[in-house]
C-alpha cells in the first residue's frame, strides 16, 4: 500500500468522509490469536482511517507465540502525526476476535462507553449484564469467514470479515466499505465483510454503570529467579486449551452393516467381541437380537456384507460366516428374565419370524405358545432349505435354544380363521407369522402334465422321504428356491439341470455365492428365457421357452422382461417351478383387515400383530427374524410396530474410513466340500471358516476399538487413556483435529466448544 505521509500536521486529502461522532485521538486495541490475523486487522483498521485522511499508527505486540496463542495489536488515529510509541492501555475501541479470550485482562483499561466488538456465535442476549457499560457489538465473523473459505478450517482468518462489522459500528455507509476494500486490494473478501456489516448487532452502553478501577501502570513485575539458582523443575502452565474453539469428542457413528441388518443385529458389536473376547462373548451380543445364528450364519443373504465398507478396500468382511463361527463355537444359552406380570402370547407359525417373536418374548419372561401346522418347528427352514445348505442339526440347535427358554410349541396344529379369532380372545396378544401364501403357478399350456410341479413341494418331499430322479430337469425361476431345487435335483440323480430365468443372471435374486456354487456343481443357467408351453403326453417331455428382451426399468429399477415370439425347446423329464409365493393371508377371519402390522375389525384394534413374510413380504430369513422381534417389542409396548434405530444418522461411508491404517488382507473364504459325486450326497457343502481370524478384518466403522491411534497422534499429548476409552484434556487441547483426522474408523468428531453438551 503506497501512501504519501502528509508533510505537515494537517489532515491529508480524504477519500472517505469522517464518520459523525468520531472523537479523536482514537485508540483501538485488537485481541486475537496467532494466525487469526489480529495484527493485520489492526493494520486494516489503520488503512480504513487513512482513507479518511487521518494520521495513523499501527503495530502488533510481537511475542514468540504461535498459531492460536493470544496476541494483541494496536491502532492509533489522530488529526496530527502520532509520536507515542507505547502500547495502548486505554483503548476507545476494543475488538476481540475470539470469545475465548474474553477476560479481565482483555477489558483492562477500557472506559465505560467505549466500543467493544466481539466475534462470537452466541446471541447478544447471552451476554446480558456482562458488558452493559460498553457499546457492545457482536458478530459471528468466524462462521462468515469459514463459509467464504478464508483461512483453513482450524484457523479461520477473520480480520477482513470483522472489519465489515467495525465499519458499520463506526457509522460508515456500505458504499464506503466497498470503496475502501477495493482501494485496499481486498475485493476478494468484500462479500464476507458485507455479510458482517449487515449481521452485526449492537446494544448501546448503559452509562450509569461505573467501570472498575484501572490497575495502575507500572505495577511491580513478579519476582525473577536467578539464573544460577535455576535448577528446579518448573512445569509449563500455559493453558493452550483456550487457543481453539473446537474440541475433539469421541462419538459413535452407525456402522453400515448394523444399519443394513434386517434382523437388527449389532454386527460390529459381535465381530469386535469375537476378535477381542472370543465366541462366547460374541454370542452374548449376537443372541440379543438373533435367535437363529446357526441358520443365518448359513443362509442369510447378508446385506451387511453388501454394505460393508471394507468392500471398497479389499473385499467385504465375511460376516455371515463369522456369525456361523460364533454359532458353531459357542455354548451360550441365554436365561430368561423374570417378569412379575408375564403376558401370554400366542404365536402362529413356527418359521423364523414366529421363532424370533417367541424368543424375544420368552427372553423377557413372557409366556409364549407357538402353533405350528407342520409336525416340527422351523417353517421354510425345515421344509424348504435343503440339508446341504442348512443341516438339520444346525436348525435344531437354534430351535432347542429357543425352547429352553420355556416356549411351548404345539406342532401339527393348523390354525383356522375361527381359531385365530378364539386365540385373540384367549391370549393377551397374538402374533401371526404364517409366511407367504401358496406358491405361484405358471400360466402355460401343459402345466398339468406329470412331472411339472412346485419346487417347494419337491424340496419338502426330498427332505422328508428322499427322492430319486432320472433324466433332465428344468427349474423355472431365479430365487433361492430355484437354486435349491436345481442343486437338490442334481443330488437326487438328475442327469442335467437347467435353470430358466426371464432376466439376466445378475438380476437373479438368489444369493450370489449360491448361484456360483450351483454353477460349479454343473447347473446350467439359461437367462432371458420364459417357458410358454410344456410338451409331452401324460408326462412332460420338454418345454418351449421364448426369448425375453430386457425392457425399460420397472419401479424396482430392474429392467422389465418383454417376452418375444422367438422360441426354442428344451427336452426334459421334470419341471420344477420356483416362481415365488402369494402374499395374501389365507387365515384372516372375515371382516379383519391388516394395517401397519396390526389387525383391525372395522374401527376396532385387535390384539393381533403380524410379522414375517405375511406382513412384510421381504422373503428372507433375516427380514423375518427382524420383523418377528419388532412385533414382539410392539406387543410389549402395546404399539403398532416398533422400529429399530428410528432417526438413525447416516452410516459411516467408505470415505470416512482411513484406509491407510489397514493392511490389504484378502477375505478369509469359507471351506468347501470337495466336488465329489453329488448323487445322494446331502452333506453340507459350505464348511465355514477355519478360524475366527476374519474378525480382525472388521474396520469397526464408527465404533472405537481403543486402537490408541488418537493417543499417539496427538501432537500435544493431551489424550489420556481412561478405563473405558480416552479423555481429551480440554484445558490444553489446541483443537488441531489430528486425532479426528487420524482416527481410522470415524469414531471421533470435532465439535464447537459452545456446542451443547460439550464440556471443556
Amino acid at each position, binding site marked *: 500500500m503506497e501512501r504519501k505521509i502528509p508533510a505537515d500536521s494537517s489532515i491529508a486529502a480524504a477519500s472517505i468522509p469522517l464518520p459523525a461522532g468520531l472523537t479523536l485521538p482514537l485508540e483501538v486495541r485488537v485481541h486475537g490469536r*496467532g*494466525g487469526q490475523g489480529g495484527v493485520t486487522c489492526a493494520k486494516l483498521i489503520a488503512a480504513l482511517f487513512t482513507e479518511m485522511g487521518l494520521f495513523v499508527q499501527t503495530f502488533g505486540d510481537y511475542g*514468540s*507465540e*504461535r*498459531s*492460536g*496463542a493470544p496476541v494483541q495489536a494496536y491502532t492509533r488515529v489522530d488529526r496530527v502525526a502520532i509520536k507515542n510509541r507505547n502500547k495502548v492501555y486505554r483503548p476507545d475501541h476494543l475488538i476481540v476476535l475470539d470469545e475465548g479470550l474474553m477476560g479481565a485482562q482483555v477489558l483492562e483499561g477500557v472506559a465505560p462507553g467505549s466500543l467493544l466488538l466481539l466475534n462470537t456465535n452466541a446471541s447478544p442476549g447471552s451476554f446480558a449484564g456482562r458488558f452493559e457499560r460498553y457499546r457492545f457489538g457482536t458478530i459471528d465473523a468466524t462462521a462468515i469467514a469459514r463459509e467464504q473459505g478464508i483461512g*483453513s*478450517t*482450524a*484457523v479461520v482468518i477473520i480480520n477482513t470479515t470483522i472489519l465489515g462489522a467495525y465499519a458499520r459500528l463506526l457509522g460508515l455507509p456500505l458504499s464506503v466499505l466497498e470503496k475502501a476494500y477495493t482501494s485496499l486490494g481486498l475485493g476478494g473478501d468484500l462479500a464476507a465483510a458485507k455479510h458482517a456489516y449487515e449481521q452485526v448487532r449492537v446494544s448501546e452502553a448503559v452509562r450509569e454503570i461505573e467501570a472498575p478501577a484501572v490497575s495502575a501502570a507500572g505495577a511491580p513485575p513478579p519476582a*525473577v*529467579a536467578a539464573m544460577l539458582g*535455576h535448577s*528446579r*523443575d*518448573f*512445569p*509449563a*502452565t*500455559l*493453558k*493452550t486449551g483456550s*487457543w*481453539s474453539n473446537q474440541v475433539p469428542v469421541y462419538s459413535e457413528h452407525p456402522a453400515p452393516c448394523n444399519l443394513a441388518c434386517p434382523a437388527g443385529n449389532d454386527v460390529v458389536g459381535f465381530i469386535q467381541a469375537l476378535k477381542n473376547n472370543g465366541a462366547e462373548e460374541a454370542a452374548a451380543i449376537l443372541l440379543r437380537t438373533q435367535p437363529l445364528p446357526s441358520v443365518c450364519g448359513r443362509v442369510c443373504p447378508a446385506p451387511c456384507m453388501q454394505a460393508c465398507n471394507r468392500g471398497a478396500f479389499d473385499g467385504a468382511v465375511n460376516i455371515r460366516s463369522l456369525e456361523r463361527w460364533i454359532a458353531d463355537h459357542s455354548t451360550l444359552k441365554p436365561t430368561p428374565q423374570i417378569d412379575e406380570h408375564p403376558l401370554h402370547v400366542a404365536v402362529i407359525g413356527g418359521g423364523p419370524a414366529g421363532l424370533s417373536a417367541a424368543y424375544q418374548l420368552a427372553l423377557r419372561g413372557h409366556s409364549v405358545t407357538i402353533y405350528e401346522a407342520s409336525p416340527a418347528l422351523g417353517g421354510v427352514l425345515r421344509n424348504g432349505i435343503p440339508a446341504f445348505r442348512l443341516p438339520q442339526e444346525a436348525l435344531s440347535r437354534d430351535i432347542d435354544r429357543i425352547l429352553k427358554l420355556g416356549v411351548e410349541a404345539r406342532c401339527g396344529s393348523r390354525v383356522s380363521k375361527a381359531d385365530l379369532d378364539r386365540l385373540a380372545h384367549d391370549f393377551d396378544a397374538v402374533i401371526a407369522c404364517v409366511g407367504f401364501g401358496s406358491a405361484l403357478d405358471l400360466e402355460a399350456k401343459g402345466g398339468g402334465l406329470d412331472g411339472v410341479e412346485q419346487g417347494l413341494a419337491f424340496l419338502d418331499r426330498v427332505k422328508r422321504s428322499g427322492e430319486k430322479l432320472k433324466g433332465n430337469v428344468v427349474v423355472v425361476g431365479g430365487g433361492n428356491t430355484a437354486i435349491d431345487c436345481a442343486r437338490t435335483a442334481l443330488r437326487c440323480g438328475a442327469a442335467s439341470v437347467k435353470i430358466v430365468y426371464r432376466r439376466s443372471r445378475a438380476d437373479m435374486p438368489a444369493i450370489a455365492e449360491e448361484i456360483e456354487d450351483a454353477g460349479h456343481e454343473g447347473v446350467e443357467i439359461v437367462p432371458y428365457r420364459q417357458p410358454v408351453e410344456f410338451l409331452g403326453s401324460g408326462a412332460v417331455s420338454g418345454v418351449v421357452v421364448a426369448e425375453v428382451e430386457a425392457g425399460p426399468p420397472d419401479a424396482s429399477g430392474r429392467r422389465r422382461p418383454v417376452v418375444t415370439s422367438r422360441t426354442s425347446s428344451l427336452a426334459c423329464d421334470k419341471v420344477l417351478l420356483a416362481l415365488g409365493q402369494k402374499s395374501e393371508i389365507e387365515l384372516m377371519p372375515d371382516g379383519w383387515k391388516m394395517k401397519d402390522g396390526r389387525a383391525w375389525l372395522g374401527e376396532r384394534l385387535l390384539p393381533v400383530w403380524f410379522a414375517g413374510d405375511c406382513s412384510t413380504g421381504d422373503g428372507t430369513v433375516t427380514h423375518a427374524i427382524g420383523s418377528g422381534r419388532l412385533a414382539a417389542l410392539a406387543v410389549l409396548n402395546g404399539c403398532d410396530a416398533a422400529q429399530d434405530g428410528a432417526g438413525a444418522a447416516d452410516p459411516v461411508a467408505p470415505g470416512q474410513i482411513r484406509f*491407510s*491404517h*489397514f*493392511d490389504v*488382507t484378502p477375505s478369509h473364504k469359507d471351506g468347501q466340500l470337495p466336488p465329489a459325486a453329488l448323487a445322494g450326497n446331502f452333506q453340507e457343502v459350505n464348511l465355514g471358516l477355519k478360524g475366527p481370524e476374519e474378525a*480382525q478384518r472388521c474396520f469397526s466403522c464408527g465404533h472405537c*476399538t*481403543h*486402537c*490408541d*491411534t488418537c*493417543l*499417539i*497422534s*496427538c*501432537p*500435544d*499429548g*493431551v489424550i*489420556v*487413556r481412561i478405563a473405558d476409552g480416552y479423555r481429551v*484434556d480440554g484445558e*490444553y487441547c*489446541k*483443537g*488441531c*483435529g*489430528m486425532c*479426528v*483426522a*487420524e482416527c481410522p474408523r470415524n469414531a471421533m468428531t*470435532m465439535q464447537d466448544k459452545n456446542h451443547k453438551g460439550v464440556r471443556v
Partner: protein
Amino acid sequence: MNEPALCGMAQTELDRAEPLFRKGNTNCGGCGMSITLQMLRHAVAQRQVQFIVPACCGAVAGGAFPQSTFGVPTLMTTFACAPAAASGIASVAALNGEDLRTIILAGDGGTFDIGFASLSAAAERNEDILYICYDNEIYGNTGGQRSSATPAGAVTTNTPEGKVEQKKDILAILAAHRIPYAASVSLAHAEDTLRKMRYALDQKGFRFLHVLSPCPTGWKSEPALGLELVRLAVRSGLFPVYEIFDGKRHVVNIEPDFSDEALNMYLSLQRRFQKSGLTAADLRPAIDRYWQNLRSLSGRIVPARRDA
C-alpha cells in the same frame, strides 16, 4: 493392521512416565515437531536423556523462564552450534561414566544451513549424539523463509514465486560421513518411527534421524492433515523412508506405490505449492532418479520386511 498402535505400549509402564514435551507448550496445533517429541517419548521410555536445542521453533517451544516445557534437562544453544555443545555434554557424561543419551533436536535451518559445518564436524568425529532433525522445510521461527531443505516450487516469504532450487539430500550427505546410523522417519508410520528411534537411541556414535515434519503454518495446510501429508509424501515416493548403516548398507523401510494421485493430493493440500502449480508430472522424473539410485544402493528391488 497393527492394533493397538505401538502394541499398546503408550501410557503404560513400558512408556516414559513423564512426557518429553509437556502440554501447555506454545507450538502451533498440528506441529510435526510436537508429534516427533511424543513419539520420542515412547521410544525413550526409561532411558536417561538430555536435549540440546539450537535456535528453532523448539527453542521457543521450550517455554518461558523459568518454566520448562521439555520434560528432560535441556540446553538451548545458538543457532549453529548444537552439535558442538552436544559434543561437550556427551563427552562429560562419558567421562563421568553416565548412561546418558544426548539428543539434539534441530530444525532444517539449523541442520541443512547454518548448523551444517558443526553437524558435519560432529558426525566426522563420530560424537556419541543422537541428532534429530525435524524438517518442516522452512524457517518457521522467523515467519517462513526458504531453507536449503525447502522443496522446489514451494512459496516462502522470500521466494514469493516459489523456490527454484531443489531440496538438499541431507541423508546422503550424512551417509557420506559413514556414521553408524542415519535414517529418514515418517511420522505417519508409527511402528517404523518407534523402531528407528529405539535403535538410534541405543547405538553409540553419531546417529541421525531425518523427520519430515508437517508445518500447517508454513505449508499453508490444515493442521489436522499433517500426518496424512507425510503419508502421501511417503506413498508417492517423494519422501523415501530408509536407513543407512555405517554409510554403506541401505535398507528401504517403506515401499511406496509411486502413486501420482497421492503426489497430486500432497501438492494440492498445501497452498505453498499453489502458485507454482506444481504437479506430479513435474516431480516424477526426479523421484524416479532418486529411487533408481536408492535401489542400486539398497541392492534389492523388494525391501526386506522388518519387524516393528
